[in-house]
């Protein structure tokens, strides 16, 4: 995916999502605000994958998008059971937790943390290969010496 003016467009979208997220929460729709947050994370994930004018959507898809989907599921399931058992004891528990909080423990905390932690290690070379880092250092130091190391035209 080409960067060009897309980064500016994405930043504008991020601004609108900030507005939507805080606006929804301020208007009393905090639960909808959580989903606006997830969309915002996706936008930052895309922007952060940019390398020399190109977005790496594979890097966004794994692990970030998988994590975001898990959080969406955690919010939905957590809220469903919180509303279902509001004001009364739940009919069942999961690992001893209230079912709504179990969704948070599993889908918001433990599994996504493992996914992101080990997932980041798994995509390390795609994220920043040794060659790319060495090239950056070489060009940055060349630029220090008055030669930017690359034809800018």
């Amino acid at each position, binding site marked *: 995916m080409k960067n060009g003016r897309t*980064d500016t467009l994405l*930043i504008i979208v*991020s*601004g609108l999502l*900030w*507005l939507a*997220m*805080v606006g929804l*929460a*301020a*208007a*009393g729709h*905090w*639960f909808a*605000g*959580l989903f606006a*947050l997830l969309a*915002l*994370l996706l936008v*930052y*994930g895309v*922007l*952060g994958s*940019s*390398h020399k*004018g190109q977005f790496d959507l594979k890097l966004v898809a794994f*692990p970030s998008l998988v*994590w975001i989907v898990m959080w969406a599921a955690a919010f939905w399931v*957590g*809220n469903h*059971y*919180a509303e279902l*058992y509001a004001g009364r*004891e739940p009919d069942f*528990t999961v*690992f*001893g*937790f*209230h079912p*709504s*909080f179990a969704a*948070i*423990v599993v889908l*918001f*905390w433990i599994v996504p*943390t493992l996914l*992101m*932690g*080990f997932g*980041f*290690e798994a995509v*390390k070379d795609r*994220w*920043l290969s040794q060659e790319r*880092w060495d090239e*950056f250092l070489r*060009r*940055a130091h060349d*630029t*220090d010496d008055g030669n930017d190391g690359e034809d800018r035209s």
Partner: protein
Amino acid sequence: MNAEMGEWVKYLILASSLAVLVISFGIGVWAQKKVTSPEAFFGGAKIFGPLTVGLATMAAVGSAFAVVGVPGLVYSTGNTILLFMFAAPGFVFGYLVIGKKVRAMAEIGTVASLGDLADLRFNGHRGIKLILSLMLFIGCAMYLSAQVEACAKLFENLFEWNKLVISVVIFAILIAYTVLSGEIGGILTQAFQGFVIVLAGLIFTVAFFTVTGGFEPVLAAISDSRGGAADLDPAAMTAWGSLPGVYAFAWVMLPTLGIMCQPQVLTRIMMLRNPRELPKLSLYAVSTNVITGMMVMAIGYCAIFLAANGLVEIDHPDKAVFKVADYLGLVAQLFVYPAVLAAALSTSSLFLSLAGNIVSRDLPGSFGITIDPVRQVTVSRIAMSVMGIAAIGFASASGDMVAILGTYGFGTLAAATFPIFIIGLLWKGATSRGVMTGMLAALLATVSGVTVELLNRFGHTDFAWPGGVPWYVFVMATAILVSIAASLLTTRDLLDRRVEMAMDL
């Protein structure tokens, strides 16, 4: 005073807590020999591996807010605050999105402070540096105050010592080792303190299962008549806890977006030896963060279980951790009290260093004043001492709960750093004039927010923020929206070629 506790037990606990202080002091003195230049003192040494940086980052992020404030809130309001603690994937996301760009910036110039980083990105714009310095200073004061409060509560529970005297003694030792070795000693002592927190976390988690028998008995205790008799709300155990839902929103949003721009995270990325070790760093940081999360959940749940069963009485939420430790017995006490101290010290040393950097380097730089590097170290040491004293005063005046002060600080710091380091490093179109305008709006919004909160506290107004959203969320949103809008309306800066390379990495 805790009358049931034997005198010798108290002095044993005191000794174990003092051991953390003494070892930290020893590490600080030893680390002095690694301070080979003023830049290294201020945090410009890229010499640490992922385990050291990961532990130090977790300890500095965790703070007394996590170890004292969070269990207190779990006890009083349930699971809502655990959303803040459980947002660990946001940690990794932050490294993934901006980690390599921040680390690359540290290669293209002398970067020892956040002000230096802002200078590089925004061509030495003095206004941005000035407002960043002021905002960071306010955030430092709030964060440090939370640590002072936690230390005071720790020893108050043991000896009923004077709060002010406790704070002064602990901060005097902390300042002594921080001024000796600066950020080099800071990161090493924080790594040690992180290890103490992890150890306490493991012990407490095991103790929780031994005492309660698991999570189900806690849920049963709060749900039946015992919970009602102890004035506990069963809704506390649901996904969103017993606070209004908007807190759940704020406490998911704040760490997820805020963690990537916290000074504790940004400054540590710059000290990592090799950016390709960032994934390992994030693994160490989140795995230790998960152990801290388990610990605070275990303490909070244990407090609920014990209070519901009439086994302990908790008169203030911030005392929950100590009451639970005292009930569990000597082994728990010998680890929990030092862990609280370690958590408070790790964050305090970082924010003292940050305050020192601001006063000796960033603030003079924003006025075009250059101080000789060796004199900067002296000025920084004086600034750290003054900041420590100011934090003690702020804590005495505010009287707020540790967790609340911590979230105030977290929000203020995020509002100061997000436009510069996240928007600024992700978008070449973020202009210096645009970000400067956003920062100005953030500063005004922060001052307004704190003023309204103080007026509310002292009963001069009863202003309620729309939807009950915490004020710092509006501050963050204002800073970001104004920065983007103003950048779109102003002409792009001509970026240094090397900065472009770092942003393109």
